[in-house]
């Protein structure tokens, strides 16, 4: 589904990703772990198409298409969803209205019929329940005045409505207390249907207790320096990253 080959990315002249390789198959959940500054967020932003990142080499193929050639909204149309580490506040723009525009944007990109307001609201109501989101958040401006937990929950809610093929969760656990972490994880797990793929970016193993990955990768200095089964996460939790960095340096 997703194939990243030898990806090199610069930000303001500094190379952050230095030859990253990663393949994610359909239905798989991959965890990306790594110390601060290893390039985790850069990876998620590059995949979603944020400005300010220069790809100097390498390729990213998504279901046979070159992702890097697409505009952010086209990537969303292809089925890529980024759950932001810091969801953006947009004053005055109604949450549900935005979501309807997004869903219909994606549907029209795919040549599907746009949903009527009634059809759309049906979808929303079902998802709201599943995710345990407070109804009142729906009619508030996008993320404006939301608590940290509410923002993250809103991201997962959007994901559940937009039904992406690949969901990238960028440090979704950061700033969440244990209860919020559980609800958010449950929301994610409910979307694991064997076809949808996940890239879970996190600094801590904690999240992976709830969203159990198929594979764990360690990102350091812009490269995957170690890959392994889910147990690798536990080992990282116990031993930290230093031994791996030394191993990689050796």
């Amino acid at each position, binding site marked *: 589904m997703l194939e990243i080959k030898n990806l090199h990315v610069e930000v303001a002249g500094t190379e952050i990703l230095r030859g990253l390789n990663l393949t994610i198959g359909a239905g798989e959940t991959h965890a990306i772990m790594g110390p601060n500054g290893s390039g985790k967020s850069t990876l998620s932003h590059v995949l*979603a*198409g*944020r*400005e300010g990142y220069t790809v100097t080499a390498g390729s990213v193929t998504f279901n046979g298409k070159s992702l890097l050639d*697409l*505009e*952010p*909204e086209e*990537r*969303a*149309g292809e089925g890529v*969803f*980024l759950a*932001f580490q810091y*969801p*953006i506040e*947009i*004053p*005055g*723009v109604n949450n549900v209205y*935005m*979501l309807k*525009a*997004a*869903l219909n*944007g*994606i549907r029209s*990109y795919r040549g599907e019929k746009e949903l009527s307001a009634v059809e759309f609201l049906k979808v929303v109501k079902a998802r709201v329940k599943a995710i345990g989101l407070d109804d009142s958040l729906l009619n508030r*401006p*996008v993320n404006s005045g939301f608590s940290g937990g509410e923002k993250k929950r809103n991201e997962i809610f*959007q994901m559940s409505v*937009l039904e992406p093929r690949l969901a990238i969760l960028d440090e979704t656990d950061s700033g969440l207390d244990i209860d919020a972490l559980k609800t958010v994880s449950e929301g994610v797990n409910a979307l694991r249907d064997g076809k949808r793929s996940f890239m879970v970016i996190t600094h801590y193993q904690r999240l992976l207790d709830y969203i159990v990955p198929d594979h764990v990768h360690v990102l350091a200095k812009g490269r995957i320096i170690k890959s392994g089964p889910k147990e690798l996460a536990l080992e990282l939790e116990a031993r930290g990253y230093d031994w791996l960095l030394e191993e990689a340096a050796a």
Partner: protein
Amino acid sequence: MASNAQDVAEFVDRHYEAGFVTDIESDTVAPGLNEDVIRLISAKKEEPEWMLEWRLKAFARWKTMREPNWAHVHYPPIDFQAISYYAAPKSAKDRPQSLDEVDPKLLETYKKLGIPLEEQMMLAGVAVDAVFDSVSVHTSFRGKLAEVGVIFCSFSEAVREHPELVRKYLGSVVPVTDNYYAALNSAVFSDGSFVYIPKGTRCPMELSTYFRINAMNTGQFERTLVIADEGAYVSYLEGCTAPMRDENQLHAAVVELVALDDASIKYSTVQNWYPGDAEGRGGIYNFVTKRGDCRGARSKISWTQVETGSAITWKYPSCILKGENSVGEFYSVALTNNLQQADTGTKMIHLGRGTRSTIVSKGISAGRSQNAYRGLVRIAAGAEGARNYTQCDSLLLGSQCGAHTFPYIECKNPSAVVEHEASTSKISDDQLFYLRSRGIKQEDAVNMVVNGFCKEVFKELPMEFAVEAQKLLGISLEGAVG
């Protein structure tokens, strides 16, 4: 991926949708201004002697005045002798009794603008007094309004049929000598609307007027007078679009509002005069004087405006808060694109005890336009316990435009509280990226963010107007994001 700046540029470059000319023969007076022209206008309108004298007095004053130059706008000198000061559609001579009798071309014009007159009257229950080239040609719901004693008619009609009201209130809010353009308007005003809501009456429907400028080189000098007697309420809507023309046209309207004890006037405007083309050719000069007088205790005047049109806008809808505990409000969205220039804002003059005012201004600059907010909050010594809150935000789309904020705060009463906040920033890349990453197109994302920015103002508009305003914003911004 394409740069945002480029997308923005494309977005800004859409065409003026209301740009077309209706071919109706005009009864136009030759260009030029002198006492004879004023006598002619007065005679054509069969005005009484006092009205003519009032006009002549204004003209005499105007000749001694100079054009203001303090606004943050630039334009070549206006030749006031090259303007024709009167034009009336011929079909106006025989007033239509029903829609069937209205010139089909006129109706078609409204349809092109997306304002199907019949539908709007039926669905929204709006009485429409369509001012077409200065003379009212169509009035509806007169009967229904008359039942409750509301007078809603053309200004000329009011001069003939309600002279006592006109004489009492005309020029009582905006004196003839107030400013250069107000004096000019007083001398040559062609027509406009007159509204009187009697004591204790809540006007049963929204009153609206659609203005259009049509005949070439014809200055438009509308005169509007709205009086809400004690305990009355009225919501008045004013909207304008204009056909595409290559020459600058002067529009100098005067609007006067009077609210007596416990009365409330809500005045909403969506202004979309022709802004000129992408190179700044053509376009309307909109030099308007709008002022409301909260004369009575607990009275309230609320201005809401969405300004997207005109080459130059010079406009400060104001409130004189004379009555104790009276309230003034000003909600404004001003959008400029291409080479448009706007210098707009408000004046809140607090004279009475316990008076309150709120100012919310949202400026959006795109292209190479200049957009200035200019506002005055004056608290007189007697305005015990007065309050003002002002919020004034500017959004920049593109690096070639300007956004300016000139607030004046003058306070002479220690018990008053005045708060002013302003911010200027460019449209947020983070917000645009967030929306796009959710699958929303760049252009739609920009529209969404801009509409969100203006939300506080739109929610003050009557529903059907709010929809039109949002649409207008989208159209005016086409081609402008980044």
